[in-house]
């Protein structure tokens, strides 16, 4: 906890980014209970209210179906955060064990086999593999998460492997080996605790890009499907009326950009924080 506050104290931008994300997340949880337009979340339409400009009663205006854009935008954050954490969690879950096993047995056939398989996934351009996977599995939020995670896990495997190779040659691992420690013991006690920081940094940056990629998939119709709400989907729906009713596309877009930027700031902040901590050592 102390480390977390030190991280916030390090730079104002870290504090702003964390506060923004926490605020958006809390609002997305509370909006179904607090918003007078909570029915809009479930696909209700009110054509008598369509295309209203932002006002006191509709802070971000209304869309072509008369739904409150503020309620939809804030609620859409929930799907985006699910994607962000889901993708990072799944990528770490697949990539880290692969990388650690390859790293501790570097130079062996196991390492060679595992890394060539991950290289195979890297051979696809970053957006193509999620498109193929979501097309095959069918468009839904969970399939978007699976699709992106399968495309991204090789990066976590690579980070873990390279760190494992460095840590494996350290004196403390050598001592542990000389005492008869197994590979599992070395991974669990020595390598994994020392790569957690790198994973946090990579995860925070990737969380932002995961939101962006998911929004991209929703935009081309392969992501979240109505009546679910997601920023990419909201932007896609408002695409045709952007010139007349700019607010319907602008606010979800703004939240998307701010969230991605916030995750990036946190990632950069964590890198700086851990490097400073390391320098002091």
């Amino acid at each position, binding site marked *: 906890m102390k480390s977390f506050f030190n991280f916030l104290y390090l730079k104002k931008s870290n504090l702003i980014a964390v506060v923004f994300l926490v605020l958006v997340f809390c609002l997305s949880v509370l909006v179904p209970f607090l918003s007078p337009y909570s029915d809009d979340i479930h696909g209700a339409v009110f054509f008598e209210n369509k295309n209203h400009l932002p006002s006191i009663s509709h802070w971000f205006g209304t869309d072509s179906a008369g739904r409150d854009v503020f309620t939809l935008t804030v609620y859409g954050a929930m799907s985006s955060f699910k994607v962000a954490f889901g993708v990072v969690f799944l990528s770490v879950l697949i990539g880290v064990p692969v990388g650690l096993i390859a790293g501790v047995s570097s130079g062996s056939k196991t390492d060679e086999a595992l890394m060539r398989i991950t290289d195979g996934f890297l051979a696809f351009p970053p957006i193509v593999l999620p498109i193929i996977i979501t097309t095959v599995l069918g468009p839904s939020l969970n399939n978007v998460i699976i699709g992106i995670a399968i495309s991204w896990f090789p990066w976590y495997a690579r980070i873990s492997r390279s760190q494992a190779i460095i840590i494996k040659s350290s004196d*403390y691992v050598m001592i542990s*080996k000389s*005492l008869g420690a197994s590979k599992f013991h070395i991974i669990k006690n020595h390598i994994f605790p020392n790569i957690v920081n790198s994973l946090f940094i990579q995860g925070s940056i990737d969380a932002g890009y995961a939101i962006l990629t998911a929004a991209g998939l929703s935009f081309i119709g392969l992501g979240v499907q109505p009546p679910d709400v997601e920023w990419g989907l909201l932007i896609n729906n408002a695409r045709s009326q952007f010139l007349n009713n700019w607010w319907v596309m602008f606010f979800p877009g703004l939240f998307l950009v701010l969230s991605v930027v916030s995750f990036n700031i946190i990632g950069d902040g964590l890198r700086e924080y851990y490097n400073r901590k390391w320098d002091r050592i």
Partner: protein
Amino acid sequence: MKSKILTLNDISVKLNNKKSQAKILDSVSLDIYKSEILGLIGKTGSGKSILAKTIVGLINSKEFKKRGEILFHEDDNLKDKTTLRGLQVSMIFQEPSKSLNPVQSVGKQFRIILKKKFGYNKGRCQKMIKAWFKKVHLRPADSFMQRYPHQLSGGQMQRVMIAIAMAIRPKLLVADEITTALDANLKNDIFDLVLSLVEESKTAVLLISHDLHLIKSYCDRISVIKKGRIIETDKTKNIFKNPRAWYTKKTIKKLFNVDNKKALPKSKLSEPFIIIKNISKIYNVFGSSVLALKKVNLNILNKEVLGIIGQSGSGKSTLVKILLQVIRQDEGVIKIVDGLGRATKHEQPNRKFGVVFQDPLGSLNPKMKIFDILAEPLVLRGITSFDNIKQKADIVMKQTDIKDSFLYRYPHQLSGGQRQRVSIARALITEPSFLILDEPTSSLDIQVQKRILRLIKKIKEKNKITVVLISHDLESMIGLADRIAVLYKGEIIEQGNTNEILYNPNTQYTKNLVSTISN
């Protein structure tokens, strides 16, 4: 009178954080003259390295507050220290492994610096690097250029750093404990080389070292620093003959008062405990074979302290790893003899072996608290109860003088000497029958070195275990080792009891080693 090259005017450096504003340097004023070698001596934590970093402009302004003025007399336009670094002043650090980028070959790192400094093209840089590598005895230069830092020994890495620092033709070279990792012979070679370069280019040197022999032999003047204050600066002759400050007197007296002859133990021959037969090891580095050990034959006798001495790159660390069986030898066999005289092959890591490495920080996992570090060897032997671990930890902590409050600290929260005590405690916690000490004191300053050596002596007398003490420093073995083996380029060129080696060395290499300490 020589002209001044650098003047420090009333330099003070304070910590800049809310918890502490402790003064690290206190009104330091110092002149460095053209082409002189100025020695800087002082205890650990006296501010030597911070002073060096301040001169080069490497202290972080967010963490330290600096006051005072640094004047570089060569060029008035270069008063700003950040422009001096790499142009007029270069620095060589204590730990070469931390100074080199682990993911770039040393040749590439060297080339980047030459390109920045001189704007040379790749071919010209390569030529210059080859020439420099030859000068610092890194041969074959082509092979060394392609190597990554982890493929070099500590000494070789430091030679790369010396080559890089000198290649930019600095006016002032700041050398912070640069020969700590090198053996006695090489120390002088490297310093002779640095001296010849210094004379040629009229480079001034600020030499920071805890090795007073070195300081005495090479420096024109000496400054003594204590708690961030320069307490005495004078010519070397005057400092050693007639030190003014009480602290200087004490430091010098301590060093030259050791009566080596009295400290020698008598050798007690006993049964072999470990038999090393025809061990060879070859590493493949970029397609070329490097012979690390060549048919090493050695008996380690029961309950003796065997000193193994050798220069950097002589195969000491490889021998340790093979003894621990964390790497396998290409040829030969190691046998362990039990109490009944039966010899069994040693092919797997043995939990009755303890080891202490050179770098106390590198040998402790930075993410583990001291308690967990001490507990690990026990956990690996199946002892998991907290009470049992604590009981055993208490015993070794008492023996190694580790305070109870350290148990819940992380390694970076301890000093170098304290960390090395923890390493020793970890090695002892399983009550090993065999202890390997690989350069246990070489990264520590002279006072801490002595304390650690005293501790090892105490352990040797109390625990009655077999110890192998590996070092590049013959002096540290006096009073500790019963026998000494000399390792040179992967071969044991001489072995015998300590008295024989010291008073009747057979090989030229050993004679040189002995002469450096008798000086």
